């Protein structure tokens, strides 16, 4: 099959990939650097029988996509930090009601209005803990335009499979950058489709929150609205979706939220490793920073430093297992990110001073230069020789 060479902007790739994933509803509110996603969706969705709406704010946008998804249509919203903050209550509702949804956050310099047109990776922790209470979450983070196109499909699939809101984190630089790549054919993607209520056996009383599903391995899939006539609520609920007061049942529900992710870590954790075979050091970086890190790795290698790289695509759940394996083999680690150490903090939690660690951090709206990472590697080498 002939592949089509294409050039796309990151935001555009996000929107076009979402359509490939089967997204047919978008609700959003304009905000730099995510606006382009809404613009592309407004022009593309009607072509494929989908629906676009520009809501009055992000509170409404998040609510509308959850409503649309519960009604049976795969849904997306896209925003940046200030809007993502406004969406947090609804995000928790999507977690509680286990509603498949995808929230794109094209990050900007922050907090507050911050640096609207500058890159930052400051929403790592917000993606994990932005809404109140313990909850499950999956967050993916692409580092190229092509990855954006591919992994937004994964984001939709994860949302359906694990019945959870998925955060798709992007960098301002990536959102606005144009890159060329071979456009994957849509046949290359497996997409997880919603079960329609008509497909249920007529005698089934559909329980939206059943733990052991007959329909599907363990997680009960969401069925579109109609004959199923189920109830959802942000209150603690039992299998049927109705409120419960008993604390042991509440605890069971909370464990279900975390377990459904924990038990599928092998399928959820996506990451790339580079030149790790003989590596004595490792650079850990994600998103746009991974690209500086890759260059730094090459530069350091040419200086004789045996360094490899770990690039997580799944930021949450945290890639603890693969990272621990790497930590047991290397004698030093560099974490590079565009914030004051959010990923590095998690990293040191699992490292527990096992190996020396250096951080390369930047929070001024500028990208990390490969040389800054090479410098950190050189320091690390010095440290381990001491």
């Amino acid at each position, binding site marked *: 099959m002939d592949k089509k060479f294409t050039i796309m902007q990151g935001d555009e790739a996000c929107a076009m990939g979402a359509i490939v994933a089967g997204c047919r509803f978008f609700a959003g509110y304009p905000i730099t650097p995510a606006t382009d996603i809404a613009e592309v969706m407004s022009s593309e969705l009607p072509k494929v029988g989908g629906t676009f709406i520009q*809501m009055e704010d992000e*509170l409404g946008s998040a609510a*509308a996509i959850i*409503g*649309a998804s519960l009604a*049976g249509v795969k849904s997306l919203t896209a925003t940046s930090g200030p809007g993502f903050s406004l969406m947090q209550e609804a995000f928790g509702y999507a977690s509680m009601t286990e509603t498949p949804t995808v929230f794109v956050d094209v990050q900007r310099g922050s907090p507050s209005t911050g640096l609207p047109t500058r890159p930052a990776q400051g929403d790592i922790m917000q993606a994990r803990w932005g809404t109140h209470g313990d909850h499950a979450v999956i967050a993916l983070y692409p580092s190229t335009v092509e990855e954006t196109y591919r992994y937004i499909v994964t984001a939709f699939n994860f949302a359906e499979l694990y019945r959870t809101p998925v955060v798709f984190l992007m960098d301002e630089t990536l959102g606005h950058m144009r890159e060329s790549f071979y456009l994957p054919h849509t046949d290359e993607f497996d997409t997880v489709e919603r079960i329609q209520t008509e497909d249920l056996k007529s005698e089934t009383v559909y329980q939206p929150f059943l733990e052991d599903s007959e329909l599907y391995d363990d997680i009960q899939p969401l069925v579109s609205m109609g*004959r199923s006539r189920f109830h959802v609520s942000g209150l603690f609920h039992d299998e049927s979706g109705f409120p419960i007061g008993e604390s042991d049942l509440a605890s069971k529900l909370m464990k279900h939220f975390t377990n459904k992710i924990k038990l599928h870590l092998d399928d959820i954790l996506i990451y790339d490793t580079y030149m790790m075979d003989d590596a004595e050091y490792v650079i850990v970086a994600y998103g746009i920073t991974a690209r500086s890190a890759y260059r730094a790795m090459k530069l350091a290698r040419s200086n004789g430093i045996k360094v490899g790289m770990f690039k997580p695509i799944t930021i949450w759940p945290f890639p603890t297992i693969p990272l621990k394996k790497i930590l047991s083999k290397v004698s030093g680690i560099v974490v590079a990110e565009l914030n004051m150490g959010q990923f590095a903090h998690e990293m040191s939690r699992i490292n527990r001073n096992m190996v020396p660690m250096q951080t390369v951090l930047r929070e001024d709206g500028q990208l990390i230069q490969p040389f800054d990472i090479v410098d950190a590697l050189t320091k690390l080498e010095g440290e381990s020789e001491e």
Partner: protein
Amino acid sequence: MNRSEASEYLRNNHMPTVWCPGCGNGIVLKATVEAIKNLKYSKDDIAVVSGIGCSSRATGYLDFNTMHTLHGRAIAFATGVKLARPDLKVIVMTGDGDSMAIGGNHFIHACRRNMDLTVIIFNNNIYGMTGGQYSPLTPTGSYATTSPYGNIEKPFDAVELAKVSGATYVARATSFHYNLLTKYIQKGLNHEGMSVIDAVTQCPTYYGRYNKVGTGPGMLQFFKENSLLLSKVKDMPQEELEEKIVIGEFVEMEKPGYVNEYAKLRKRVEAKSHAK
């Protein structure tokens, strides 16, 4: 409609309701069920979305596709449901705080878009669920736990707000006027576009008690004595209407709305891309 006819539309295993004795929420719920029964809608074809508040608990008792959502956001959730599934009849059940305070923005914009929703405001002039604080619909001078010296704010008129924002069916009745309320809800359901029914109802536990209007029956008596039909008040001076509840149909018109306009847009775009 007798009890067993009503129970066909209810989740009887989740009864009794959480509502206080004498609360008007059950009356509005019953009027809604009766309206649906009269229209012979299939239960599968109805989605009901509520926010948070005493009144918003109504969705749990209704045997339709139901969503109990977030405080203030019911209309936004419902917008998503309707746009995803235009074949469903989408009803919003919301409190006066839910729709006029925290959810005011969604309310006016859904009216402006003439979104095809039927919004039933359980208007008890107070925040019931949180224990009787004043709402944007609490009359000036009324007492609430957060207006212990009398409310100094001026309330919204939900009907006027719906009207100026662009809703295409707007009506008001009280829980005392059960038949009228049922009729308006029925017309609202039948209407294409944004329908707003301001269902004035009683919260005897807080509003009735703090303002010495009485218990459930006492408040119904108050609604009976203080309501005037719109058709009767046309020539009355404004001052005489100040303390009164004007009931009736305020707006009934046909206008394009988002759902249909989007379907047309889609056709236009599809035709264009086929032509290419």
